[in-house]
């Protein structure tokens, strides 16, 4: 199984990186961009065939380590290899 975790700055938390990317995109002429948020992408390859176990495992990894909930939000999905 492979889990893909998407982490981004929480709503309301300033995102200096997103702001910088947004302005750089503007300078390059991409002017339909309304907003950019930059976060982290974590890909986890798991040795298990049990999707539910995988799901609860990844949820726990996010809760304990991967995400700092003071400033970050996350979602994840799980797919077969």
């Amino acid at each position, binding site marked *: 199984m492979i889990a893909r975790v998407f982490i981004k*700055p929480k709503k*309301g*938390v*300033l995102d*200096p*990186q997103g702001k*910088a990317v947004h302005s750089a995109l503007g300078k390059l002429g991409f002017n339909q961009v309304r907003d950019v948020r930059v976060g*982290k992408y974590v890909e986890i390859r798991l040795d298990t065939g049990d999707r539910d176990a995988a799901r609860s495992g990844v949820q726990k990894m996010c809760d304990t*380590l*991967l995400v*700092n909930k*003071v*400033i970050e939000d996350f979602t994840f999905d799980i797919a077969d290899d």
Partner: protein
Amino acid sequence: MTRARAGVIVFPGTNCDRDTYHVVESTAGMEVDYLWYERKTLRDYQIVLVPGGFSYGDYLRAGALARFSPVMEALREYADRGGLVLGICNGFQVLLEASMLPGAMQKNKTLRFICREIHVRVERSDTPFTLLYRKGEVLSIPIAHAEGNYYASDETLRHIEDNGQVVFRYVDEKGGVTAAANPNGSVNSIAGLCSAGRNILAMMPHPERAADRLLGSEDGTRLFLSIKKALR
């Protein structure tokens, strides 16, 4: 009287351990030991320092991986019992990730590492770390970090301000809080924060780098002397 005993935690990737050790020993005249991150007890120490550096390479988030070290369990207990803890730079980040202090660090607003002399104002002189400063005094101390942009939710912020937990704030030379004097974008220009019980202090500036006239500033010296005095 036996000399007070200080411990300096060493995580893999810590790199201000030797600087911190040196200053605590030579300036505050304490006995100092390095405390390996796998250590499980801190009973023998009167103060524990969490020094700067890049614990675990600062990978994922600064301080995020260090917080799971065995010594952190011991540190939490130690602090709960009222032991003095000083976190500097990466130490601040570790203490935040460990939720021993509220809030979190983000990348500097410039998105760059910044190493520079800055000014901070002493907001409280009634902590064990700042006894020998005057409230309102402006200190010149270097910063050196990429993730020192302190964030806390409005609610948390109100709480720590009301509680008087802000110990240092970034200011200009004259002591004014301005946007230009805030090097990294920290909310309320917060540079240093203590716990509700005042026994934990965490700060981004490096007082150990400002404790020698040769290095340009001695403004950090009294922080170590304060600790010594508080422990007497």
